[in-house]
């Protein structure tokens, strides 16, 4: 009996020490967001996103120049020529689409698909800490990487996904895998991330996402790969993120 009590006490102490070393979900999300374009510079950041989509055997490719500052971002299509000049503006959680020649911008849903498996909300900076309530549900291995598994639940209806299962590298504090889940709990898309880029902000270096691959959970041959290139610090006026300035 006494021996059992000792074992239980030891287990309790062990559990406590693990809880103390486990970072909070908020802390983990802020760290991963920083490596996926969320505000680490007050003046602004920029990079290009090359999006390759394979859907039902057909390939399509688009390239965007992304400019981000705090909670705003603007994605301007630079290729193919047919789409050149099209703009997706992210004002906090509100998204606008503007096409040259059209008289007014259109308010769109972050959930609407841009191309293939990527939703509009996937292409610019990521603000999971702002948009989702997170809970660390355990520690798991993704490949050889030891990760924290988080369950994220949307704080508002106008965010990209309702629920996300998110695996974060315990050592590097980088998101390595995400499963996007419907309201009914079904996984419909799976994303994997690579971090071969580096972002230098005021002399400090951060790892930055280099590739995000989003695959249809039901059809593995339908996927979208976003390649992030040339990330660097830049200075942007807040006025370029004003929707009224899109109409020239």
């Amino acid at each position: 009996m006494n021996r059992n009590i000792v074992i239980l006490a030891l287990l309790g102490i062990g559990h406590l020490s693990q809880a103390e070393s486990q970072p909070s979900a908020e802390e983990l999300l802020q760290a991963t967001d920083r490596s996926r374009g969320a505000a680490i510079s007050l003046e602004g950041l920029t990079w290009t996103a090359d999006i390759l989509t394979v859907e039902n055997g057909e390939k399509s490719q688009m390239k965007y120049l992304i400019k981000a500052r705090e909670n705003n971002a603007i994605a301007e299509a630079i290729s193919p020529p047919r789409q050149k000049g099209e703009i997706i503006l992210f004002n906090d959680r509100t998204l606008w689409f503007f096409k040259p020649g059209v008289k007014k911008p259109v308010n769109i849903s972050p959930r609407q698909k841009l191309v293939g498996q990527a939703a509009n909300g996937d292409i610019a900076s990521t603000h999971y800490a702002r948009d989702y309530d997170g809970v660390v549900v355990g520690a798991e291995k993704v490949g050889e990487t030891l990760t924290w598994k988080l369950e994220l639940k949307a704080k508002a209806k106008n965010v990209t996904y309702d629920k996300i299962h998110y695996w974060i590298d315990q050592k590097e504090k980088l998101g390595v895998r995400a499963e996007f889940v419907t309201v009914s709990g079904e996984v419909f898309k799976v994303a994997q991330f690579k971090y071969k880029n580096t972002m230098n902000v005021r002399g400090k270096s951060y790892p930055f996402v280099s590739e995000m691959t989003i695959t249809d959970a039901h059809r593995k041959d339908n996927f979208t790969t976003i390649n992030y290139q040339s990330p660097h610090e830049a200075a942007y006026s807040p006025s370029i993120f004003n929707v009224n300035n899109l109409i020239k």
Partner: protein
Amino acid sequence: MMSFWWIAIRNLKRNLRRNFATGSAIAFGFAGILMLNGYSNRVTNFLRVYTVYVLHVGHIEVFAKDGFQKFPYQPKKYSITPENQAIIERAIQEESQVDFYEQQLRGSGLIGNGCVSLPFFAQAIDPVVDQKIRTHPDVKQWMWMIEFFLKGRGLWNYSEEMGPIGVSRDLARALGKSNVHDDVASAGVTIVNCDDPDAKSKFSLDANVQLLAGTWSGPLGAVDGEVTSLFTTGFQETDMSSILLSVKHLQKLYDTPNVSQYAIWLKDPNRLEEVAARLEKNLNARGGSFEVLKWDEERLSPYYVGTTQFIHSMMGFISSVLVLVVILSVLNSVTMTVLERSQEIGMYRSVGYRKSQVNSLYMRESLILSILSLIAGGILGTGIIAAINHAKIIYHPPGLVQGLQLMLILDPAYGFVAAVLILVLTLVVTHLAVYGRLRVQVSELLGGVLR
């Protein structure tokens, strides 16, 4: 022989009260059947014309193979390419029974006013065909009372470059587009600052909207549109999301030269089966892979088929009950008459009248009574129909937002057939009742023991 008719008339006068009751049953029953037919005839023809013309279903629709079912999910794969459009148009032009036809395209996306965006479901049609449909003789005959547009004018009144769009009532309200192009044409486009507290009140200053959707090649696409009319689909579910525009306009949004289907209207709709079979054969012979659907197939016109099946079964049941009541009234009356007049029958037989002659006498009585009653029922029925139509009663069938005037339109051929049917049944019942009595011995009839 003439004296038989006079005897029949005299006999009818002898029992006026009972004959009046029997005649009333026939007259009211017939009037009821005429009214039911008036309702059924009006509703089914209204729905037929609404489906074939106003909804642009046509008499025949041609899709790419499996396109009817799969186009909404894989539009690029199950749409009709320009090459297949050429095949279909050659086959249509060779078919002498085709009155006119159009290309159609369906799809969805977002419609915005510069600040707010809402989902839409678009039906793209040929504006010239739309104009033809609104003035078609069938539409004028059965839907003359319907205002097609709550506000504004049809697409055919405006240039394609302007991008005219018809917007359903509740969708226009949600977008704040209470004015159409004709109301605010001179004002130009108003850019509204969405952060302004009074932004909502400024949406109606212009009729400009934007349509946004994923193009069939992948990326997002957007086009401008000008609200030129407001309409109602008649259904609350679709009044919040429907728009009507030209095929070219929607093709520009989706960045495709393809269409989803062809709608074909025939000169003689009675030859539907024959023309559809011939068209399908011709299309397949040209090497294409197509699906030819007739307008009255349940999968193409589920509302029409479901509603008319319900109406016909209900009308059939009520008419059967009415006819049964009429026949039972006649049977009861004739049986009573024959019983009461057993001695009279015996007397006719004893003075040398043959069974067939006595039977003929009763048949004449029944024939005169039935014809007079049917005439009275016809006058009564048409009178009530005229009164109901004159009263302009509005009722609200399930789903119809505007309501519909209760209007009965009698089909004369149906009325004639119903009258002949009642007449024949009345004579058969009379014959059966009299024939049974004629088989009794004359002595028994004269003795009155059977009364």
